[in-house]
């Protein structure tokens, strides 16, 4: 506590020694967080460090296995979000929970009890806008609002329920920079009125510029809790990545057996000052230049919202580039992260799932006999366990579905020219054994000369497989060594050690 005058006041929110397990995974181990009233508190940590889980505990969405929760000094039990809301805790999730076709006022009224009085809700919203300087038109339909304005609706929902402790999960990941600054300024003034803000983020600069206090989680434990004034980018990075670990990790040899330090084989992808703009018109990748060669796995790393999603889709030919030069093979395989939605026909047989590739250009009569034979051979060579090629995709396990998708996507149509595949979170939802099989497949794909671009939100997965790394931070892409510490720092926008 830097200011002794506030030392006696009970914390607005205190989480003490929280434990939480999901099956065999320990998400939180004795994690703690003390949020003082009148402050903005940054909660930092890598993907999977337990930030979101801890805040879900604070919002009554998860019940802790052990530990104590205090709100303004009083010990409380939070069984549901309604309990948390009643205590003045509000949460703004990363993925909004709004009904697009409803107006702002309707969305805000949605969680209320009793009679629906939209006029009163609108009046209260206007009053809130005046009081907080929060521009929101109650009559506009949410689908017509920008992302930033939708986020304001989420905040307004919490404020209308008299939230005095506001938790925001990566609020700036979806915002363009100017909107981020506006939001952070607003959060600052909200806290200055005696409220409290918990800002979950992995952007260090943001944490240091706006927060009063910082708590860092690593692998489910609180490893640092300090006033922001005492913290530096370096100390926070060390806490997030674990400086001891980093030393160990960086001595490990790069996993790739082939290229070390540079592209060895002929380039398959070549990007020169490539810029990608997303559907909403926001620039996501800025002037990226790199090559990906045959026979190598190039890992792509970035915290959510950094532009890696768009970069992958541009490489896969699913998103046009706005400017620059991108040389890529005509047929690039793509394994999207949402397999069930974007990659397979769950209720159709495996054969038809194989036939899906190239469905747009095929014409006339389909030779199902040939596709069936082909499916059988792909199933054999990728070890896909299924009742047979006619079995519906739904009846096959997730790991086998993913192997079939990999087999299909690698299967370049003409069989001539370089083979290339873009892979996004390939083991999401798979158990350990299935994940290991998918990894083995990716390695053997590489060994047969294919170019592989691999992204996973689990950075360790990427580091294990990749022989080179590209790190995306705020739209810029740069090459990095296959080293946990270096990559981790670049992902956070910090410079690697020794270059500072």
């Amino acid at each position, binding site marked *: 506590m830097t200011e002794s005058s506030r030392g006696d006041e009970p914390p607005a929110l205190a989480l003490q020694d929280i434990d939480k397990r999901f099956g065999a995974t320990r998400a939180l181990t004795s994690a703690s967080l003390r949020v003082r009233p009148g402050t903005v508190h940054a909660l930092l940590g890598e993907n999977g460090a337990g930030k979101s889980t801890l805040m879900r505990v604070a919002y009554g969405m998860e019940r802790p296995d052990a530990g104590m929760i205090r709100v303004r000094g009083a010990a409380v039990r939070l069984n549901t979000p309604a309990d948390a809301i009643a205590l003045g805790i509000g949460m703004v999730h990363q993925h909004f929970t709004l009904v697009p076709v409803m107006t702002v006022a309707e969305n805000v009224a949605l969680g209320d009890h009793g009679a629906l009085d939209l006029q009163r809700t609108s009046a209260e919203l206007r009053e809130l806008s005046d009081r907080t300087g929060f521009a929101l038109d109650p009559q506009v339909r949410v689908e017509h609002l920008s992302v930033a304005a939708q986020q304001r609706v989420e905040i307004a929902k919490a404020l209308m329920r008299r939230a005095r402790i506001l938790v925001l999960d990566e609020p700036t990941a979806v915002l363009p920079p100017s909107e981020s600054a506006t939001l952070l300024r607003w959060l600052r003034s909200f806290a200055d009125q005696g409220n409290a803000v918990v800002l979950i983020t992995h952007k260090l600069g943001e944490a240091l510029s706006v927060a009063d206090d910082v708590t860092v989680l690593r692998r489910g434990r609180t490893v640092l809790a300090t006033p922001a004034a005492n913290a530096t980018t370096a100390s926070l990075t060390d806490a997030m990545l674990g400086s001891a670990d980093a030393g160990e990790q960086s001595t490990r040899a790069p996993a790739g057996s082939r290229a070390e330090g540079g592209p060895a084989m002929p380039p398959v992808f070549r990007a020169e000052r490539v810029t990608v703009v997303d559907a909403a018109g926001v620039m996501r990748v800025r002037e990226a230049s790199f090559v990906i060669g045959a026979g190598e796995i190039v890992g792509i790393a970035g915290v959510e919202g950094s532009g890696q999603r768009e970069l992958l889709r541009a490489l896969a030919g699913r998103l046009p580039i706005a400017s620059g030069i991108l040389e890529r093979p005509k047929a690039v395989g*793509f394994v999207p992260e949402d397999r069930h939605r974007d990659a397979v026909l769950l209720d*159709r047989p495996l054969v038809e799932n194989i036939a899906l590739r190239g469905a747009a250009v095929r014409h006339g*009569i*389909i030779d199902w006999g040939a596709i069936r034979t082909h499916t059988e051979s792909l199933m054999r060579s990728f070890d896909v366990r299924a009742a047979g090629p006619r079995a519906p995709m739904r*009846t096959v396990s997730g790991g086998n579905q993913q192997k079939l998708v990999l087999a299909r996507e690698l299967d370049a149509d003409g069989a001539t020219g370089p083979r290339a595949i873009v892979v996004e979170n390939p083991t*999401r939802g798979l158990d350990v054994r299935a994940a290991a099989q998918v990894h083995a497949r990716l390695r053997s794909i590489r060994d047969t000369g294919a170019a592989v671009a691999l992204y996973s939100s689990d950075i360790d997965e990427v580091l294990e497989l990749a022989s080179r790394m590209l790190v995306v931070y705020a739209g810029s892409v740069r090459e990095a060594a296959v080293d946990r510490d270096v990559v981790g720092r670049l992902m956070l926008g910090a410079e690697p050690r020794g270059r500072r």
Partner: protein
Amino acid sequence: MRAASRELALAAVVVAAIGGATAALLVAIGFPVGPGLAALWTGSFGSWYAFTSATLVRAVPLMLTGSAVALAFRGGVLNIGGEGQLLVGAAAAAGVALTMPAAAGLAIPVGIAAALSAAAIGGALWAAVAAHLRVRYGVLEVISTIMLNFVALHVVSYLVRGPLQEPTRVYPQSATIADALHLPRILGAGRLHSGFVLALVLALVAGWMLRHTAAGFRLVATGESPAAAASAGGIDVRSTTTRVFLVSGALAGLAGGVEVLGVTFALYENISPGYGYTAIAVALLARLDPWLVVVTGVLFGALEAGAGAMQRDAGVPATMVAVIEAALILAVVAAQSIRSRRQAADGDSYTLPVDA
């Protein structure tokens, strides 16, 4: 062959269920069961004449609209507008047939072909309205197609009192179309006309397209998962969806044209007793397979024909058969969803990611 015997068993269950449900309903509303069921049977399958002139004649529009619905549903288009497309097709066929120069007697096949083409184009254009609303503005076709049914009904109502009204201007119907343009009857099959052959061939072709052609596969993939069709298959989902609307509308429109040229020979307000709606039941019972639509189309044709006979001979209200049809659909839909849920429960080891 186990699949085939399972199909046969299912068919037997369906027929038994119809008989049982009808008997139960007859008891419930206080009609003698024996004469009622007897009339249902004699009016539908009881004689060659009943089978061809009543059952199959009614099966023709049901097979066409049933195929239209099956194709649409498979392609992810919930076309509830078969009725409206049928009415527009009927009006278009009548319009062309009535304005055809009388001297065209030389080229009867050309005249018939022109009228039927007009019917198909009319139905497709009617569906195109809903297609445009869906693809361009995201309007749900369940809403737009059902609304267009009412519009079509009123368009026909206007036509038979206005531009297409018969010359004496007394009755709300069109003049009778020239004999030369009637669809030829099938020899030895009573009132059954050659539209039956057309419906049969089109249903078989539609089923074959779905199974064996690239275009059919694009339709199935788009209907199954538009996101996967676009992402993994590179399929242009919008254009595929539009085509599904057009083909489905054309088939339903053709049903209207065939009715006019083969059965009514004029345009009336209530030319269809709701074939476009019954088609949904026909298609669902056929599990959206146009080949099976041939069978279920005949089954529902028999129900319609038998209902008429029951009313005539046993005094049982024909609406009772509508109740049975509805119960049948509910049973089939329930059975299908139970089956697919059981399939989903088997061996699906997909686990939710733990997001920390």
